């Protein structure tokens, strides 16, 4: 049986800016097909500015001008039924937010109310989502949840500034998962944290997944984190998914030239041989090159790469690549 819980079909989400008569369209998400399975950890990787955060905004239906979904759709499977999010009313979206799908935005650890104790933030949160409850019940719920996730209870009495960055990040994740959402979406939850704290956050995400048996969509450009936690990875480049496969495949046998660069440029301990990064810089999404968007930087570029965007080729079960080198691109659909 199809186990897809979150699906996008030819999704296009563009920033349409009108700046004093000059219009500018940033094609941040372009024809993305994803089929995210229940109970998996799906990683999305790619360079800064390639549209990862925008894709997540579309996934959680948090699309606000200037961002607009201009094509395709996002569907959730709720109780066995496919629901197109564009048909949902604002109230329905609000009801689904957090209880069905939870979103930890980029930099969200800095948005905890600085003048409220963590305890009060929890209480406000519980009250606004579960209706007004008595103080004690709300507090007991928060306590149970924190204990479940292995966080110390004394943080409830702290103000955000008294906690370290890593602890703040873990508090926001704990808050987002309080209502046991089926899908948790995290945007760079470990970026700008140091390695030790990063490991703690990944540990927490694994803990969440183990307890709630839910789906996690994790965006980060740190390939090491993906290697540690993701089941499947989608590599994004210039608004498109260019390769998708199980984590072992992405690291063991990357097929797209961009993925190959990403993997081979990672430094390893005990190996000081010079490593090269991807040459050049990513294209502006407001002014994309024609054909395969990677062609200005690709060492294997051919004439047709400059003319036509390659479609997906299924090189193996659950491993698809959009590159002319690999195949003719006859499989447009997500696995």
């Amino acid at each position, binding site marked *: 049986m199809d186990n897809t819980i979150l699906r996008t079909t030819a999704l296009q989400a563009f920033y349409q800016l009108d700046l004093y008569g000059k219009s500018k369209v940033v094609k941040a998400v372009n024809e993305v097909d994803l089929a995210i399975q229940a109970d998996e950890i799906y990683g999305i990787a790619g*360079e800064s500015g390639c549209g990862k955060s925008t894709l997540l905004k579309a996934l959680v239906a948090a699309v606000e001008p200037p961002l607009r979904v201009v094509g395709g759709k996002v569907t959730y499977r709720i109780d066995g039924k496919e629901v197109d999010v564009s048909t949902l009313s604002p109230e329905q979206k609000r009801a689904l937010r957090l209880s069905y799908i939870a979103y930890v935005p980029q930099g969200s650890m800095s948005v905890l109310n600085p003048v409220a104790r963590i305890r009060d933030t929890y209480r406000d949160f519980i009250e606004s989502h579960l209706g007004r409850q008595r103080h004690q019940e709300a507090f007991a719920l928060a306590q149970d949840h924190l204990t479940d996730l292995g966080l110390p209870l004394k943080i409830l009495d702290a103000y955000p500034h008294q906690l370290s960055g890593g602890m703040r990040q873990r508090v926001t994740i704990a808050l987002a998962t309080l209502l046991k959402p089926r899908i948790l979406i995290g945007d760079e939850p470990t970026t700008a944290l140091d*390695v030790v704290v990063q490991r703690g956050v990944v540990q927490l995400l694994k803990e969440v997944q183990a307890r709630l048996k839910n789906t996690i969509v994790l965006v980060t450009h740190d390939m090491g984190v993906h*290697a540690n936690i993701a089941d499947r990875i989608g590599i994004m480049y210039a608004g498109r998914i260019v390769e998708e496969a199980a984590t072992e495949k992405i690291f063991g046998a990357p097929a797209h030239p961009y993925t190959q660069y990403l993997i081979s440029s990672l430094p390893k301990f005990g190996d000081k041989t*010079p490593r090269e*990064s991807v040459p050049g810089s990513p294209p502006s999404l407001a002014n994309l090159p024609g054909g395969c968007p990677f062609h200005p930087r690709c060492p294997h570029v051919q004439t047709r790469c400059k003319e036509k965007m390659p479609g997906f080729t299924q090189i193996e079960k659950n491993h698809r690549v959009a590159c002319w080198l690999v195949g003719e691109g006859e499989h447009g659909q997500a696995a």
Partner: protein
Amino acid sequence: MDKLLEVENLTKVFALGSVLSKLRITAVDNVSFFIKPAEIFALAGESGCGKSTTARIILGFEHATAGTITHSGKKEAKNERVWFTEGIQAIFQDPFGTFNPLRPVERYFFETLRNYKLASSPAEAVRRIDAKLHAVGLSYEDLAGKYPSEFSGGQLQRISIARALLTDPQLIVADEPVSMVDASLRMSIVNLFKKLRDELGVSVLYITHDLATAYYVCDRIAIMFRGDIVEMGTVEEVLMNPRHPYTQLLRASIPEADTTHRWQGEIRLADTEQDEYLRQGCRFAGRCPHAMEICRSTPPPTVQVEGVQVRCYLYSEPFS
């Protein structure tokens, strides 16, 4: 052996909270190290351990509570930033914050040349700027008239390095220069440091928590924890054979891009930085798997073990 920069017994105390509160943390506690000419020296450790504070003091943005900084044999005199910044330049963590988004980037280049009187004519200024941009793989054409938002993070970081090179500094202080650029660009930045060291003889104080790139480019490394240097030596020794329990933890926390080596077991994190800063004995005792009675009461001494400087009771006489 000549030393380009020597930091001796550097201490910085911050008073937390209001003027009245008694709470003081020693963000940098009696730290000493030196950097040789044409060397990349790493200062590593988790966030909030005093790395940036050390860098800010070296750059003159903050005054030390105690300690001295000697640059090419000259001691730092108070408020004498000019001779100082000509020889020591810096690049920062956030490439998008390094330049004012409302000003063309090239302005900083011309201002640097004008303020340090390094060019006698506009043509010469452009030549000099172009030369420095070439050192980082760009050219003046790429830059002319453009604003920061027209560049990618990696480009901005390289532009930032080129600006720092304008005064021909002997040392570049780089505070977490790669923590906000992604993996593929990281390598282009650290490769650039290598090139600067090998071709121009520039030293780099590379502040980071990314030990993998530190291993890749650095010659020596100091591991900092809550204001103390807990281990210092060559990268080979310190990172391939970590001795201090904290270095071991750091080393084990690096996510390896290899699906067969996933993290095993759980780690403990500090609840708050302050608790650890205010600890009496070894500041790592709260998380150290080897913590002993004495660790909790008296700070450990610094000892030399096979050429590596370690600050832990496990290696001092009566216990090892």
